């Protein structure tokens, strides 16, 4: 910070991470990586002009180089009429969440080998590609307003694929998002087996029909992040591109749906201060279907503590990223039904095991997604397994058409969701 004295405002963010990754290729351990990563970003303002630069800390002159680069940028910067300042210091509003696992801090390649071996032993089909990545991460934000906060967390991320062999191979996928080395390789191995075998007996869907869709956490997580997450993004509201920009206090979802941004529980981005140094807190977004709030960072103004540089899956390179608005941990309040109960309640629907890539359009909420494996439901029973079809709808409409909410909550990146069913989707095939 000393090198930045003399500016109206200045900020330094430093991050470092030690990352271990083990890769499985073709049901055998193929690589192990060890990475050490550290760097910083400098931001400063003078008379409304802004400077910003980042460097990796790979040489003695890195810090002075970074300051020089940011100064050069500031010289060229036009006056920014929207900049209101970096974060102001504030008191912590929540207790430190449990996001540090000493087992991750001290992990050795042999520990990861053991987990990978258990996974391979418990998967009865091929594992063409999988990885487990663990990291111990530290970050520090300081600014000339007096912010001086430090954060540390551990991150555990796993991505696993499976495949049956034969003329009609089926593919399965599992993920793990967490802060503790609690992934269960035996369960993951069994799930990979089940999913790949289910996909291998899929029949191509033909025709088209309107139906209910049942989305498990693995598919719903990213669809909610890309739709609801974008609609409650304060910058999208500020620039008029949130479909819910004028809906604060109004009903935007079914009465049974409540969503809270909750950084108090263990989750990849849970923290006491965000990456700009603003205190975080538990924040209702949707209460019984009514929109209760938007998420903001310092650029947006009146920050809610959602200015994040860190990723929920990757520790490397946090210092390179400018803070953007992110949910810290968007939690959907669970219901009381099991997935089997939801299927039994569904008259005419599809339970999606796997999309090609689950996402909705961030502006409009529209989606049209390739179903890799889905179970057709008639009068509460699964009557067939289908693939190669498009499931279409709009997630911002779907949240107003919630039929059932499950009790099987799982962490999927920055969201924690159960299985849910929605009416009003369309399925189109060949």
């Amino acid at each position, binding site marked *: 910070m000393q090198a930045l004295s003399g500016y109206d405002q200045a900020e330094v963010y430093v991050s470092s991470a030690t990352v271990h990754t083990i890769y499985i290729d073709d049901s055998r351990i193929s690589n192990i990586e060890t990475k050490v990563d550290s760097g910083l970003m400098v931001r400063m303002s003078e008379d409304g002009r802004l400077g910003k630069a980042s460097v990796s800390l*790979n040489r003695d002159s890195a810090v002075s180089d970074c300051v020089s680069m940011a100064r050069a940028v500031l010289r060229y910067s036009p006056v920014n009429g929207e900049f209101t300042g970096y974060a102001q210091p504030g008191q912590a509003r929540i207790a430190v969440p449990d996001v540090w696992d000493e087992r991750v801090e001290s992990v050795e390649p042999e520990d990861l*080998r053991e987990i990978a071996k258990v996974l391979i032993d418990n998967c009865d089909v*091929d594992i063409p590609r999988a990885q487990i990545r663990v990291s111990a991460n530290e970050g520090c934000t300081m600014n000339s307003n007096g912010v001086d906060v430090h954060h540390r967390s551990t991150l555990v991320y796993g991505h696993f694929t499976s495949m049956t062999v034969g003329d009609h191979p089926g593919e399965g996928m599992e993920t793990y998002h967490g802060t503790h080395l609690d992934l269960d390789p035996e369960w993951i191995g069994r799930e990979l087996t089940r999913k790949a075998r289910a996909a291998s007996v899929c029949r191509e869907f033909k025709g088209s029909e309107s139906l209910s869709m049942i989305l498990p956490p693995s598919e719903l997580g990213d669809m909610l992040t890309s739709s609801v997450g974008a609609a409650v993004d304060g910058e999208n509201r500020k620039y008029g591109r949130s479909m819910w920009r004028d809906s604060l206090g109004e009903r935007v979802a079914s009465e049974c749906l409540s969503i809270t941004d909750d950084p108090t529980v263990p989750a990849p981005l849970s923290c006491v201060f965000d990456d700009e140094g603003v205190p975080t807190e538990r924040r209702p977004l949707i209460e019984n279907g009514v929109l209760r709030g938007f998420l903001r960072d310092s650029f947006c103004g009146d920050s809610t503590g959602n200015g994040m540089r860190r990723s929920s899956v990757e520790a490397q390179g946090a210092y390179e990223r400018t803070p953007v608005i992110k949910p810290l941990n968007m939690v959907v309040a669970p219901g009381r039904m099991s997935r089997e109960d939801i299927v039994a309640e569904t008259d005419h629907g599809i339970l999606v095991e796997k999309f090609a890539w689950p996402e909705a*359009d961030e502006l409009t909420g529209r989606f049209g997604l390739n179903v890799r494996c889905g179970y057709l439901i008639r009068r509460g029973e699964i009557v067939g397994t289908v693939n190669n079809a498009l499931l279409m709808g709009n997630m911002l409409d779907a949240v107003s058409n919630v039929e059932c909410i499950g009790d099987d909550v799982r962490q999927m990146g920055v969201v924690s969701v159960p299985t849910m069913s929605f009416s009003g989707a369309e399925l189109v095939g060949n």
Partner: protein
Amino acid sequence: MTGQRADDYQDVLESAVGHMQDMGAEFSDARSQTIRVTGVSSMNGELRQLVEKATGGVCLRAWIGGRWGYGTATSFDRADIMSAAASAVANARGDGKSDLHLEPASVRRHIDARVRIHPDSVDLSEKISAVLDLDRAQAVDDRVINRMGSYSEEIKDNCLVNSVGSDISWQEVRTLCRAMSVASDGQRMERYYDGPDSTLGFEVVRDTDLEEVGRTTAEEAVATLSAERAPSGHMTVISDPMVSGLLAHEAMGHASEGDEITKRRSFLTGAVGRRVASDVVSMYDDGTVHGAHGSVPFDDEGTPSSRTQIIDHGEYTGYMHSLETASQLGCRPTGNGRSENYGKRVWVRMTNTFFAPGEWDRDELIADTRDGILCDKMVNGMEDPVGGCFEAKCLRGFRIRNGEIAGMVQSFTLTGRSVDILTSADALSREVVLDGGMCGKGIEDWVRVSSGGPYMRARMIVGGGQ
């Protein structure tokens, strides 16, 4: 320019390779990389981002018993690099052993980027002006609620040495600018984007009519507000070059990556010599296309880039390879062993992937189509090497009825079995365009690629979103 270049550390890299060999590596390489990025973006006439970034580090790889070990240092300190080299060798050791031997070429070359105007020679103020010009040009209609301009340059300096005597350095320069407009009529929102990308220098910006790009981008976003919902069903589709490229990339490209073949994860395993498309379809991956966004002089293992024919007039002809997959399949490496950066693993990755041209004009294709849909720009896509399907999201399109354009349609998704679609392809245009973007392997490890092709007519499943 701030900081050192990757090739300043050649002596240390050679020492690290020697260290890994002494510790028992059968083959090893060391690659240093520095990456400098200048990014400028605007929103509604105000600069939103103005940033310079400089990152760099060293990736050490040791090959022992058919297994890679990696060590990465975000430091150019000799002791840190030697420590990462020791980690690489330790990480390569393990149970099980293969006698697979890599066959890397020994190359000694030093290549500068082939650019006319190096971005380093251009004042930052001109880059800012370009972005604000793009932004201002979009102010053509009150319904344009977001005007966005952006400029980005990336300068990568690479240095690689390995245990068979390679000594290579090269620079990659990528320059791009883009306009994106969001339009709203109070109820609906639509967007449109345009702008060039390349492995060229700042000439890309100076040679572009920024006013024209910005204005037409905004006008098209507004026009899309009146688009109708796209139809759904199995129908005739004319993909534009961008969506043709997405088909090439997602439907066939990923499934032709050598590691998907060695794992038998691709529906194209054992397909060489088999018919996978109609006679009019030929397809390549070519990392040597001058100026294309995915071009590289060498891959990240030091193999010179090359042109790989994947489909020859409907017949499947071959795969892309890294050192490892080439050895596994008894082929020559094709220069497709790429990584996102020094901190990421090398995989088999595409470069510039495209369908070869046909003999039609775009307008002839439309006039010859009784009932169908014409694509206009892509959003993104997803591969399915196991199932042999694909998914491509289109930004918008046009209905074709009785040989004429009959109105605009909103975003929609295409899917189907890749071989069925390419076998149904019956007409391709003479015009081939490449479009740059980022490609992930599964869900991460992003590398810069391009994809493209001609306008192409085929049958596939169309789904219009709500």
